[in-house]
């Protein structure tokens, strides 16, 4: 309860789903062999933290920002440039973190102070403009960022796949640098989500929720809402940059497509909506559903299409053809928004009862 900041999932089904996801992620290196499974699991971890940080903005303050991938990109590029420039050592990792995180926070502070006073739609537009400018800048400064090709780099010795930490003869599994990196990604993502959970359940989080509902009413109670919104913006940017660092460490690469593109921003938005806004837990579920669908729907459809064709069913083999996976992914999203308008977490919590009534204080 302490670790969840007094905000448990409040639904048995939700608790079960979350436990299954977290345990499956934790056991991925041993349960699901192969590089693809580990990649998918690491991506789920990174995106769960990234989406949770976006939920702090969208779900808890009602602020729509399109600059979230920019902060994610700043983290990615900072670590990539440091490791590329300084070589694969821990000093470079530390430099990337020390430069990337404050840079993201300072930029978020500047955007917040200049634009959070204005109406929400203008803030969204300003973030869109800043993020576009940053994307152009990243591709133009090719001497630093590697341009469209991005930057590939090597990790410090300890995190390399070739580094065997525990040989197969001890547990029957080999623990190498790659698995260590995975657990680093897993643990830091979990830590960032727990910190966000703590933030939203603190007095500060309550003010954010009040601002989301009615900014003027919150001001009439004496809260300087620009300060609160800017602070939330900086916190979200820090976590996004943290997720960017983890993503780059995992991929050993940072480039426009993996860390800055607007398609990532759309993915984040979809994950928040599918999981459930204003819940933090929704980020874990949204990221898991979305990334699993993105990676396995095509092969699942291949199997289904083959089975349907072997059974001699009309129309179905064509409809389920793996090439049509994007159509089905789209339908899956429409269905999830239609059936879970408050997201999966909202639906499950609603089914499990609201904040309970009590007689004492």
């Amino acid at each position, binding site marked *: 309860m302490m670790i969840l900041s007094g905000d448990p999932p409040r639904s048995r089904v939700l608790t079960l789903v979350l436990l299954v996801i977290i345990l499956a992620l934790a056991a991925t290196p041993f349960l699901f062999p192969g590089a693809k499974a580990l990649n998918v699991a690491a991506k789920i971890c990174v995106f769960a933290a990234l989406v949770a940080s976006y939920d702090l903005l969208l779900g808890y303050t009602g602020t729509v920002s399109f600059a979230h991938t920019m902060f994610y990109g700043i983290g990615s590029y900072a670590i990539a440039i440091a490791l590329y420039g300084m070589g694969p050592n821990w000093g470079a990792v530390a430099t990337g973190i020390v430069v990337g995180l404050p840079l993201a926070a300072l930029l978020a502070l500047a955007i917040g102070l200049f634009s959070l006073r204005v109406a929400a739609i203008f803030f969204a537009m300003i973030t869109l403009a800043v993020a576009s400018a940053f994307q152009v800048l990243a591709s133009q400064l090719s001497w630093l960022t590697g341009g469209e090709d991005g930057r590939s780099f090597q990790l410090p010795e300890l995190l390399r796949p070739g580094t065997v930490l525990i040989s197969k003869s001890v547990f029957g599994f080999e623990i190498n640098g790659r698995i260590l990196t995975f657990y680093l990604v897993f643990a830091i993502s979990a830590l960032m989500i727990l910190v966000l959970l703590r933030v939203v359940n603190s007095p500060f989080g*309550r*003010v954010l929720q009040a601002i989301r*509902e009615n900014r003027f009413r919150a001001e*009439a*109670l*004496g*809260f300087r809402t620009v300060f609160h919104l800017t602070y939330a913006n900086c916190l979200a940017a820090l976590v996004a940059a943290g997720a960017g660092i983890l993503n780059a460490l995992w991929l050993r690469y940072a480039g426009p497509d993996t860390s800055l593109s607007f398609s990532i921003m759309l993915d984040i938005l979809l994950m928040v909506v599918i999981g459930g806004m204003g819940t933090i837990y929704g980020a874990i579920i949204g990221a898991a559903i979305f990334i699993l669908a993105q990676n396995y729907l095509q092969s699942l459809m291949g199997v289904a299409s083959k089975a349907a064709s072997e059974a001699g069913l009309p129309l179905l083999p064509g409809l389920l053809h793996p090439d049509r996976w994007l159509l089905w992914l789209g339908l899956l999203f429409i269905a999830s928004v239609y059936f879970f308008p408050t997201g999966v977490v909202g639906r499950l919590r609603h089914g499990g009862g609201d*904040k309970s*009534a009590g007689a004492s204080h």
Partner: protein
Amino acid sequence: MTDLLKLSGVHTHIGRYHILQGIDLAVPQGQVTMLLGRNGAGKTTTLRTIMGLWQASSGEITLGGERIESRATPDIARLGVGYVPESMAVFSDLTVKENLMLAARDGPLDDTQLDWIFGFFPALRRFWLSRAGSLSGGQKQMLSIARAIIEPRKLLLIDEPTKGLAPAIVMALIECLKEIKRKGATILLVEQNFFAARELGDSVLVMDNGTIVHRGEMAALAADVPLQERLLGLSLEAHQ
């Protein structure tokens, strides 16, 4: 008696509309000043202008001798002004407890004050951990008032607290406001319910078309039916 709040020559424009057209008023310390008037007279705009939610385009507003017309809303609130907007303005996603904690700006809740509030509004104790959005209209209004009085305030601005409430709840609210008044609070109260106005008001200001058209003792207005009809188009008796 000293005036806690003074407005002199206050004009407020909302877009191209000139709503407040030179308001002069004073709210004496420790008294309940009623602000009456027809719909659209500018009563809510007056409260919102005092609170800084609308910026006065000209004129002076002083609170305890300090100019506040250019101050931001949070600063005015921190000077000790509690505002209860109309339409049951609670934070519906937060619990009753969280709403009150927010109003106390996350300082510790004073148990004695809380018990005093629960004495008037037992429903708030019953639904302490329920979402404010799930409360009935009357309970939301109780919470809205409780939020304004959970901390000691120099001045309370209350906008139509009895609007749309059942008679029994109106009586409970009047009793609560009377008790707050007995404790020495200074209140500027906008009210359409004349019974409530007569029960609570020490002095009265009547607005029309963005100006104050009458000022005097509430008891005198309550006793003068022709004056009520002239100023408000209604008589007090018709509303009892």
